């Protein structure tokens, strides 16, 4: 079913065009990103139910101008309540101009230098896209939604006597964005959904949990995936009650697709965000066109590289999405860029300029990041491991783009001895290592690529955006603790 565009954005488009025209008299470059994101999160657990707007909901505008030196931005979310469109546009443009001037005046005389940026030279583009989902979540009766989520709770209780809670979450966001400048007129509308099963189990004082994520450019149909995975998720959580701590050391490891994705994301994804190149914060610069990984490793990122939660027509700076090959057979080839970083580095922008919301700055951010497939099978990989672990599910990761350390918090690992899974589990695990060492050690890569886009990605400890990541199973070596 095709998704309807935001009536709000369409209604205000003539005003936005006039604002751009008006501000262009004073500034050599003006653009406006307008957003209207709606959505709902439904959550059930044993003792309560929650329904609220998705945390990704927003409606507002961000104006970017070239102020003669660098770029200034102003975020706002009110439109003056006057009947005439021309008057509204004049008032908005006047307010924006005043506010930008006031902020710049406050910086003069400024005790430090200001970077000089060239003016954006845009090619004319007019594009509009409305994506489809099978079942639009907005059309579903809330009673039906909550009833389906609640049923999973009672089913889960029958699966494990150790279960103390089952959190079931379904969330969707309908994203509508419009980008207007003198050369560009674009809008896009799409829906992404994500869901979680989080069974929590307890035996005596020992509490464990797992979460099974689901995501995609999907609608209400995502709930089918949650329902079909319930038994496996609860049984996995129960198995963790018997998990042991890992003996610290370096091991042969096989990473499941979500852990592979975490490595791709934290190791090379953040490391090739090109605003880090501009700041001289990226070790990756030293590896461009050099071997940074095993020749079995090819890595992509891009809004067009896969269909997941970060697939779009244009980014938050009005650059069309692309498919960037970051690593090609082990050779680090390209970074991913926002518009202004690409400017400074004299590169073509890759369409990775993303904002947490209209209220925040655009940075170079990942979209859909993954390692490409290989020719091996998981079964073959397991048979080659003398003593190691199959790592599954993660809770978080952290980048270190300058010094290329990597931290991955893994939920559990399955022990492998003499080429066979022993049934013994270790949990939790901290996987660490030096990025080139981990990736140069990749010795086997499986055929099927799986991506997941649940959760969110921060830059440092802020600026959270939707991304997806994934890959095939990979075999490598890393330190576990």
């Amino acid at each position: 079913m095709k998704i309807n565009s935001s009536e709000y954005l369409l209604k205000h488009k003539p005003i936005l065009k006039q604002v751009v025209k008006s501000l262009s008299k004073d500034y050599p470059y003006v653009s406006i990103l307008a957003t209207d994101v709606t959505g709902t999160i439904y959550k059930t657990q044993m003792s309560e139910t929650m329904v609220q707007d998705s945390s990704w909901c927003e409606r507002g505008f961000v104006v970017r101008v070239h102020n003669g030196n660098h770029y200034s931005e102003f975020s706002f979310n009110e439109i003056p309540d006057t009947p005439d469109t021309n008057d509204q546009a004049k008032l908005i443009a006047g307010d924006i101009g005043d506010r930008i001037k006031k902020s710049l005046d406050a910086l003069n005389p400024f005790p430090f230098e200001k970077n000089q940026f060239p003016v954006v030279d845009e090619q004319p583009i007019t594009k509009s896209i409305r994506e489809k989902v099978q079942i639009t979540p907005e059309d579903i009766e809330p009673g039906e939604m909550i009833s389906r989520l609640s049923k999973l709770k009672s089913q889960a209780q029958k699966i494990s006597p150790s279960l103390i809670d089952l959190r079931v979450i379904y969330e969707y966001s309908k994203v509508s964005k419009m980008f207007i400048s003198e050369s560009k007129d674009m809008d896009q509308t799409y829906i992404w959904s994500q869901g979680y099963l989080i069974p929590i189990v307890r035996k005596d004082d020992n509490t464990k949990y797992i979460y099974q994520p689901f995501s995609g450019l999907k609608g209400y149909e995502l709930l089918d995936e949650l329902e079909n995975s319930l038994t496996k998720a609860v049984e996995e959580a129960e198995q963790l009650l018997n998990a042991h701590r890992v003996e610290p050391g370096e091991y042969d490891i096989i990473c499941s697709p979500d852990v592979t994705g975490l490595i791709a994301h934290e190791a090379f994804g953040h490391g090739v965000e090109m605003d880090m190149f501009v700041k001289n914060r990226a070790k990756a610069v030293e590896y461009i066109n050099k071997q940074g990984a095993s020749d079995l490793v090819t890595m992509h990122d891009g809004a067009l590289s896969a269909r997941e939660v970060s697939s779009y027509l244009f980014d938050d700076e009005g650059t069309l999405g692309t498919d960037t090959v970051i690593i090609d057979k082990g050779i680090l080839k390209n970074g991913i860029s926002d518009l202004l970083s690409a400017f400074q580095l004299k590169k073509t922008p890759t369409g990775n300029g993303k904002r947490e919301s209209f209220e925040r700055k655009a940075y170079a951010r990942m979209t859909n990041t993954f390692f490409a497939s290989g020719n091996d099978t998981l079964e073959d990989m397991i048979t080659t491991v003398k003593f190691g672990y199959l790592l599954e599910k993660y809770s978080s990761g952290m980048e270190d783009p300058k010094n290329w350390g990597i931290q991955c918090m893994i939920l559990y690992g399955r022990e492998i001895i003499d080429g066979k899974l022993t049934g013994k589990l270790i949990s939790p695990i901290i996987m660490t290592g030096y990025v080139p060492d981990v990736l140069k050690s990749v010795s086997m890569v499986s055929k099927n690529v799986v991506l997941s886009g649940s959760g969110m990605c921060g830059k440092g400890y802020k600026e959270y955006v939707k991304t997806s990541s994934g890959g095939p199973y990979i075999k490598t070596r890393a330190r576990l603790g």
Partner: protein
Amino acid sequence: MIKRLKKLLNSTKDVNAWKIIGKEIQAEELFFIKNNLDMNRSKTVKHIYLTIYHDFKEDRNYRGSVSVRLHPTYSTKEVEDVINKCLLSIKHVRNEPYPLPKPAESSVRIPESRFVSKPIEDWLKPLSESLFQEDTFKNGCINSAELFLNREQTRILNSEGIDVSWSSYNGTLEVITEWNGGDEDVELYKLVHFSDFFTDNFPDIVKNQLTLCQDRSTAKPTPPMNAPVLLSGEPVQELLSYYLSQASAENVYNQISLAKPGESIQGEKITGDKINIHLEPYLENSIGSSAWDMDGFSLKPVSIIENGILKKYWGPLRFTHYLDSPPTGRVPNIVVSPGKQPVDEIRRDEYLEILSFSDFQCDPLTGDFGGEIRLAYYSPEKSGNNRYPVTGGSISGNIKNVQHELILSKETRVMDNFKGPEMIKLLNVSITGAE
């Protein structure tokens, strides 16, 4: 909008109660690369958050609720549509009934921030100068920094008659320092929140970060060891927040925590320091300081844990009501009492003192903690002398296995919404070396 909304809510039949939170934010943001201004941003936005409640009876009584955001550009028709949509959902939200807070005088005085004295854009220069004041090292510098200052006006109303409002300041500094004179160029990351202006605040942070960066540039790979682990700074807060999670009425109600008032929350046979935690509505420079929580509940200081014994659950009125526990509200600031040993004494034996992690985490549910080491000092000798910087590797453990013999330092530190021991000593932590 709020006046219009109140009228609409009060005249809608199935809305039995409601809460409105209004926020008006004015912000200025500066982005630096080295000490060059790369971009400036400004913001003026309004947000309205509405929760409506509906009471109904099936097999028993329920109170359902739905929370939504109302954009300031919504027409009356759009607001009506949103409320009607909420009412469709709310009849399926079967939660135990609970009351909303009633109006109460606040006994807490929140001192005025220095930022009140002039418009926020006029603080950009003093804040920037303060940021770069100590950026004077030969081989190290501020690589990049982001400086945000928000002025926020918050108003909370509910159908019980609460109507409170206050102004606050919410500042953020993200600063990355680098050092280029060692074996390898290195950097460290720091995120700081502030609500007031102190001339020494940023210079002290930057100077300390640069000094740590210098040490990281000469750090050796962390060797494998079984030394006691010393944590300081943010990880102390992260680790001790486990106890707040255990004492949370919401977590107890949801069976995530089994903690009971009058019982030890720190395990048995405690040979180290016993935990004491109280919560404060006001803490200097904390962006969370407030006389009311986001339900409009009037906050007071409250003691939660005394000598390792849980005294009282804490949390929003809804969950303390469920547990028939005295109401506390969601008090924003955490104060942990210090221990008896000075830092110098704690450092007397062999230790691994970790100054910076990639991302230290303590799971509030399981008590598992750990993180990758970006910078630590290892002192291999029993005397505690001859320490040297190390990097790489990780630590991991479970708080339930270390809590009976943890040592809290006598010295305290204030960070964001936390005041507590400067240092914490942990035994039996698993250390993975990087060699």
